[in-house]
């Protein structure tokens, strides 16, 4: 077992807790950079999808897991990003400019959606974001001059300095750069005053306010950043699919995104990645498992939704901290072996919560 002796404040500021962390994350990075030479093309494409969803998940995690604002319309931001990117890329914009523009557009939409968050909370905010999702889906279907309507729109390969990133490998690297970049940005925010203000709003709005945190400003900011990352994810998603249509950004997609952060574990960046792996990996597992099931079940339509639903219910009931919570327990068990106690992660009943002031 490792005990970290803290001798400098920088140790608490650093992203890695100790050299073990640094070693494992470097190894992971190395493996990811080497992946195109080691993995078959199909798996590389799946890994790109994991990265794309991880970008969206990190954004949604910042909003739902760290600021406490739930959005059930996040696919709409992906849609805005994807269509903006498709529109601009078709006009020959360089990738960096079109991505920035797609993110900015999504962020602007995020601020607009954030406005009701200043007034409504919890369930009502969820309803507001849900209806925003419907509005965007409908707008994408109707605004045919720009979006191509329900017939969909094809997306050209991204252009970087005149080179087209049209191979699986080159696109994989683009996704890798984007996911590492956005994760670092979010991690940096979380260890700075802005991120702490988000956490403060999540845990107690009244006391955040009395610490001088402007609720309106930070809620809008959280929505904007989260939407920008969803927009980035959406833009990459469009390039990867090479074809986008409004139903790809419907309620079902939004629910998948929420599922991803809840199953991954709310309130942790690791959770966002675990959630993305789950979301991409599960259909693979289901299709593998299909052959071993009786035909009546294995070939039934909607098997995937049933499995997702069951997994979500199981997690909410048995492991509210998600995959990341499970991983923490496993790691603690290994570190402390044989001294792990069953009750270690039991949450103590919190003491009387004050009568809410509002």
């Amino acid at each position, binding site marked *: 077992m490792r005990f970290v002796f803290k001798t400098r*404040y*920088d140790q*608490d*500021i650093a992203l890695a807790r100790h050299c073990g962390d640094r070693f494992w994350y470097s190894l992971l990075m190395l493996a990811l950079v080497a992946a195109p030479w080691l993995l078959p093309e199909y798996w590389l494409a799946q890994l790109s999808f994991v990265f794309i969803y991880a970008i969206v998940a990190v954004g949604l995690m910042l909003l739902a897991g760290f600021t406490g604002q739930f959005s059930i319309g996040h696919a709409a931001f992906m849609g805005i990003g994807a269509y903006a990117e498709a529109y601009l890329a078709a006009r020959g914009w360089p990738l960096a400019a079109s991505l920035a523009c797609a993110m900015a557009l999504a962020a602007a939409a995020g601020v607009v959606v954030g406005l009701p968050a200043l007034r409504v909370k919890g369930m009502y905010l969820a309803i507001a974001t849900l209806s925003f999702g419907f509005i965007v889906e409908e707008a994408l279907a109707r605004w045919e001059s720009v979006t191509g309507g329900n017939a969909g729109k094809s997306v050209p390969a991204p252009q970087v300095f005149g080179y087209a990133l049209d191979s699986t490998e080159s696109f994989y690297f683009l996704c890798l750069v984007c996911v590492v970049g956005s994760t670092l*940005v979010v991690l*940096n*925010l979380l*260890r*700075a*005053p*802005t*991120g*702490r*203000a988000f*956490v*403060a709003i*999540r*845990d*107690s709005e*009244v*006391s*955040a*306010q*009395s*610490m*001088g*945190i*402007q*609720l309106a400003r930070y809620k809008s*900011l959280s929505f904007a950043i989260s939407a920008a990352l969803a927009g980035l994810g959406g833009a990459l998603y469009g390039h990867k699919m090479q074809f986008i249509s409004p139903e790809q950004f419907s309620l079902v997609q939004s629910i998948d995104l929420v599922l991803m952060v809840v199953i991954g574990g709310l*309130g942790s960046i690791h959770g966002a990645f675990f959630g993305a792996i789950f979301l991409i990996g599960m259909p693979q597992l289901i299709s593998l498992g299909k052959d071993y099931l009786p035909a009546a079940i294995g070939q039934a339509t909607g098997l995937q939704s049933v499995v997702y639903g069951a997994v979500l219910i199981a997690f909410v009931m048995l492991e509210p901290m998600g995959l990341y919570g499970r991983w923490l327990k496993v790691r603690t068990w290994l570190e402390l072996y044989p001294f792990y106690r069953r009750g270690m992660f039991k*949450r*103590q009943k*919190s*003491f*009387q*919560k*004050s*009568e809410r*002031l509002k």
Partner: protein
Amino acid sequence: MSAPLLSVRDLSVRFGGVLAVNKVSFDVHAGEVFTLIGPNGAGKTTVFNLISRIYTPTGGTLSFDGQRLDAVPPHGVAALGIARTFQNIELFEHATVLQNLLIGRHIRRSTGVWAEMLFTPAVREAERRTRRKVEEVIDLLELQHYRDALVAGLPYGVRKVVELARALCTEPKLLLLDEPSSGLNVEETGDMAFWIEDIRRDLGVTILMVEHDMGLVSKVSDRVLAMNQGAVLAVGTPSEVQADPGVVEAYLGTVDDVSSLRRKA
């Protein structure tokens, strides 16, 4: 005497048909410990919520340090130099003690969002400065042991101290303590009395508190204001207020009250 730090004039607030605070006036001078007492429902916490701008008064004025407080938004109160604790503890439950205290330094932040996204050297340096300030408070209130503990798992007494620490991290001029000793045992209450003295003497912070424990009140307060049913009953030194017939009546009732309850034969 110099101008008061906090001046409350004819403060009133009405919630529907309930007049929760009725024309309350008092002054708090720099450097003193001023205590509000009164039976449950007297409106003490409401006065606190009015001063920290969580509620908007329906009448009267509030001024702090020569500035009108009524025009300041709720999040602007901390920047003026007023920090508070809550009766039933409003900490950031799923964060560590250290993070809670760092949030207390929010109004002193010097870095912008873009710089924070990149975590520039300036941000790192600002973080170090923030941490050094927080460590001073941790040393004062002896919280070293709990630095990395999650608030959700801490005992009640420690949470009270963490909340006090978080308020101190804002470097306030006026500290509002809402029942600092509620839920504490005798020993912890003793510690709290020491800290209140220390905060006033060493840090020069003025303290306005709501408190029920008369032992603590008489030990630390310079002046006491007694309230009942939203109105002021008496103001003075702790012993004067305790001897005031109106205050005694508010707490214990009068002889007539009791006789009216007696069952008629």
